C-alpha cells in the first residue's frame, strides 16, 4: 500500500526480472514484426534517454519538480511494456504522463497549459491544440497501467537515511542525481526503490562529488562519461562491495556458528562481487583515486557497508544496480540525440501519428 512497498501494486505487478522484461518486449516485436522492422530505433537505453530528456524539457517549461517527473517516467516505462512505441506518438504520451503524474503527485497542471507547452516544444511532432487527444491518451495510459498510479520512489529512502549515514550535502546531491539518472534505465522496473536509493548512496559515498559542483555543460548538458571514468567508479564500487561482502559473509558465518543458521532465507544472494568486477579491480586501473580518499570518507563507506551487512538488503541486487548504472553511463557515449529524434519522427510521420 501507499506506505508499504511490499504490499504495493508496484511490487506485486510492476517489478520484473530481466528475462521477463526481455520476453515482454520480444512479444511486442513478435506481435507486429513488420512494423518494428520498417522503423528501426536505437537501442533501448538510448531511446529511454531520449524520452527522459523530453520529459525533463517539458517539466522545465512547466516548472514541475523532480518527483512528479520521476513518476511520469515510470508511467511511460510501464506503458511501453504494454504498447509498442511505434504505435504511438511518444510526444503525446510524454505530455500525458506528465499531466497525469502531476495530478497524482498533488501538483496538478491545467490540461490546456500542458498541451500548449508541448506544442511549442515539439511543434512538428505533437498533435494540434485539441485537448481531447491528451484526454484520450490519459484513458489509454491509465487503462494499460490498470489504474495502478501510485509510484514508490527512492527519494524517500534517501531523505530518510541521509542523516543516519551523515552524508554531506554534496553526497546527498550526488545520490539524488544518481537516482534521477536511474529513471533512464530499466532499474525502476527491476528493483525496489530502497535498493536503488542505497545503491545511489553507496556510489555517492565512494565516488565523492568533485570540488566543482555541476558539470560545465549546464542544465541541459547531455550526460558525459568515459570508459576510464566509469572504470574508476566501478573499481571503487567493487572495492566497497568487497569490503561489505566480507562483512556480510562474516556476519552470516557468525550467525551460522551461533547455531541459528535458518536465517539465510530464500534468495539469499551468493556473493560474487569479485567475479562481477574482476575486470575492474582497483589494481588494474585507476587505483589512485581510492588511495587518495580521505580516511574519514573511507570510514564512512565502511560504516555504510557494515550497516548493509547487518541489513536484509539484497546485496546482489545492489551490485546489479551499480553495474547497470555504470554501464549506462558508459553506453551513453554512443548516444546520438539527433538520430534518436529522427528515428522517432520517421514513424510518427509515416503513420500519421501527429494528427
Amino acid at each position, binding site marked *: 500500500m501507499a506506505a508499504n512497498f511490499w504490499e504495493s501494486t508496484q511490487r506485486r505487478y510492476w517489478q520484473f526480472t530481466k528475462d521477463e522484461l526481455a520476453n515482454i518486449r520480444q512479444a511486442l516485436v513478435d506481435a507486429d514484426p513488420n512494423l518494428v522492422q520498417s522503423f528501426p530505433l536505437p537501442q533501448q537505453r538510448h531511446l529511454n534517454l531520449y524520452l527522459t530528456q523530453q520529459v525533463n524539457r517539458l517539466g522545465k517549461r512547466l516548472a514541475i*519538480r523532480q518527483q512528479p517527473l520521476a513518476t511520469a517516467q515510470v508511467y511511460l516505462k510501464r506503458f511501453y511494456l504494454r504498447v509498442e512505441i511505434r504505435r504511438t506518438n511518444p510526444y503525446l504520451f510524454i505530455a500525458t504522463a506528465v499531466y497525469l503524474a502531476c495530478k497524482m503527485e498533488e501538483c496538478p497542471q491545467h490540461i490546456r497549459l500542458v498541451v500548449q507547452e508541448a506544442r511549442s516544444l515539439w511543434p*512538428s511532432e505533437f498533435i494540434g491544440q485539441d485537448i481531447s487527444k491528451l484526454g484520450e491518451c490519459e484513458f489509454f495510459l491509465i487503462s494499460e497501467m490498470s489504474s495502478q498510479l501510485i509510484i514508490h520512489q527512492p527519494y524517500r529512502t534517501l531523505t530518510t537515511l541521509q542523516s543516519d549515514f551523515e552524508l554531506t550535502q554534496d553526497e546527498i546531491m550526488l545520490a539524488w542525481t544518481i537516482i534521477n539518472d536511474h529513471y533512464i534505465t530499466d532499474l525502476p522496473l527491476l528493483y525496489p526503490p530502497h535498493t536503488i536509493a542505497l545503491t545511489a548512496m553507496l556510489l555517492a559515498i565512494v565516488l565523492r562529488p568533485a570540488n566543482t559542483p555541476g558539470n560545465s555543460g549546464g542544465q541541459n548538458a547531455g550526460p558525459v562519461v568515459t570508459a576510464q571514468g566509469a572504470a574508476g567508479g566501478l573499481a571503487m564500487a567493487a572495492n566497497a562491495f568487497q569490503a561489505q561482502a566480507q562483512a556480510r559473509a562474516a556476519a552470516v558465518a557468525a550467525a551460522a556458528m551461533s547455531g541459528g543458521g535458518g536465517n539465510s532465507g530464500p534468495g539469499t544472494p551468493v556473493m560474487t562481487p569479485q567475479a562481477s568486477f574482476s575486470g575492474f579491480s582497483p589494481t588494474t586501473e585507476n587505483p589512485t583515486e581510492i588511495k587518495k580518499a580521505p580516511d574519514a570518507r573511507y570510514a564512512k563507506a565502511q560504516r555504510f557497508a557494515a550497516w548493509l551487512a547487518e541489513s536484509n538488503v539484497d546485496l546482489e541486487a545492489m551490485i546489479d544496480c551499480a553495474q547497470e548504472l555504470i554501464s549506462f553511463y558508459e553506453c551513453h557515449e554512443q548516444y546520438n540525440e539527433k538520430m534518436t529524434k529522427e528515428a522517432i519522427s520517421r514513424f510518427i510521420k509515416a*503513420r500519421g501519428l501527429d494528427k
Partner: protein
Amino acid sequence: MHNHHQQYHASAPTFPLSSLFPALSASASASTSTSTSSGDFFQIPGGFNLSMNQARNARAEVSYQQQQQQQQQQQHSQHAYSSGIGPIAYQSKVRVTDKYKVIGFISSGTYGRVYKALGRHGQPGEFAIKKFKPDKEGEQVTYTGISQSAVREMALCSELQHPNVIRLVEIILEDKCIFMVFEYAEHDLLQIIHHHTQQPRHPIPPNTIKSIMFQLLNGCQYLHTNWVLHRDLKPANIMVTSSGEVKIGDLGLARLFYKPLHSLFSGDKVVVTIWYRAPELLLGSRHYTPAIDMWAVGCIFAELLSLRPIFKGEEAKMDSKKTVPFQRNQMQKIVDIMGLPTKDRWPLLTAMPEYSQLATLQQPLGSNHSAHHGHHGYHNPHHRPAPNAATASVSHLEKWYYNTINQQISASAAANGAVSLSCLDKEGYSLLAGLLEYDPEKRLTAAQALEHPFFKTGDQISANCFAGCKMEYPHRRVSQDDNDIRTAGSLPGTKRTFTQVSQSYGGDDHLHGRKRVKE
C-alpha cells in the same frame, strides 16, 4: 521555498561521473554539442491528417443491446485499420455491459451515478458501479482530462486492501466514462441512523455502536498508517454490508499526505462536509493531520448515539472563488456544546488564521439551555450576555452525553426490544471526549482509540455489527427507472427525487457542490 529546492528539480539528468573526475573535462565540451543539437529538431514538416478519434464519434450512445452487433463490426474495422497504418483510437478491452448486468440505480450526484449490478460470468456477489459523468462540451461528450478527485480515488482504491475499507473490484475506462466497480454494501450509516429515527424512535443497540466504532476506527488506522487522509468521513460514506462489516467508502477526497510538495490547504481549499469538519479546519489551518478524520469519527459516534448530527451548522457559501469564508455558524454549534477553545486547552490556538473570529462568537448556551442543542437557527449576538472567559470555555459535552444515553425509551420501542445506551457509561464519554478534543495534537489517534477501555468493557466486540440484532434493517433502495448505465450519465439533471432520508440530509451538498444523495 522553490528556489531552495531548485537544485533537486527538474533539470536535465546530471551525470555525476563527469563532474567527479577532472580528467573528463574534455568530454564536457561534447555535452555542449549534444545539447545544442536539440535545436535542429523542430524543422520537420507537418504530415498526415489521420484522427485518433476516427470511428469513435460515430458511435451513438444508444443502449448496448441495440448496438452490440454494429459495434462489433466497428471494432473489427478499427482493428484492421490500426494494424495497418495510422493511429490507434483508445478502446477499452473490457465492456461494462459485457461483464455486468445492471439491476438498478442507487444514487446520483455531481460526480456521476451509482448502479447496482450482478456479474454476467458468475462473479460471486453483488456490485456497486460508480460511473463518473463524462464532461460535455456542447452536445458532444469529449475527453477533457480526468478530475483530480477521480484520479485519487482510482489510484487509492487500486492500492488499498483492508476489511474495513470498501473493496474495488476493477476499473473500466470505456467510451469517455470511468466505471469503478466496487463490492456492494447493503447499508450505510446514514440509512441505519435514519431507520432508528422512525417511530417509535429507538436507539441503535449499544453493541452495534461498539462494533461499528471499532471497525470504523480500524479502517481509519489502516488509512492513516498508509499515509492516506480520507477527508470526507460522514455517515453516508460509511458502508455496512449485510453481514455487518463496516467499510469506509468514497475516497474521492482522500489523498496521500506523506511529505506533500505543497501544503494540503493549497490543494483543496475546503475539505470535509461542514457538520464533520474539525475546528482546526474551521479556523483556517493550512496544515492538518489525520486528526481531522478523528474529529469526524467523533461526530459520527455522537450521531450514532443521538441519531442526529451533533454540530448541525449552516454553511456560509463562498463569496468568491479565492476567499474561503469563516464558518461562523458551524463554529458556533461546536462552541455551544464544547465551550470556547482556550490557549490552555489548545496551545497553538492563537496561531490559527481565523483565531480572531472566535471573539465574535457568542457565549455558549448555559445550563438553562437544553443540552439538546442544535435546532435553532442563526443566533443573534445581542440576545446573549457578553462572553465571560471563565464560563465560556466550560464544556457541556458530558452533560450532552449523559442526557443522550440516559434518554427514556418509549414503551412501544421497549416492546420492540429497544435497549438503553446507558450501559455505555463513562467509557463512552471518555472516548467521545477524546475524539472531540479541540487540540488536534491531543485528540485520540485511530490507534489510541482502538485501545480505549470503551472497547474492553462489556461484551466482546463482534466483527458483525448486527450480531444479536433481532430485526433486519431495510435494504438499500434500488430504483428501476434508470437501468441503462451506458446512456444515463449523459442525460444532465436527471436527478432522482429525494426520499425522506435524503431530505433530512438535504443540506448535504456542502462540499465542492458535491451532491451526496443516498437512498
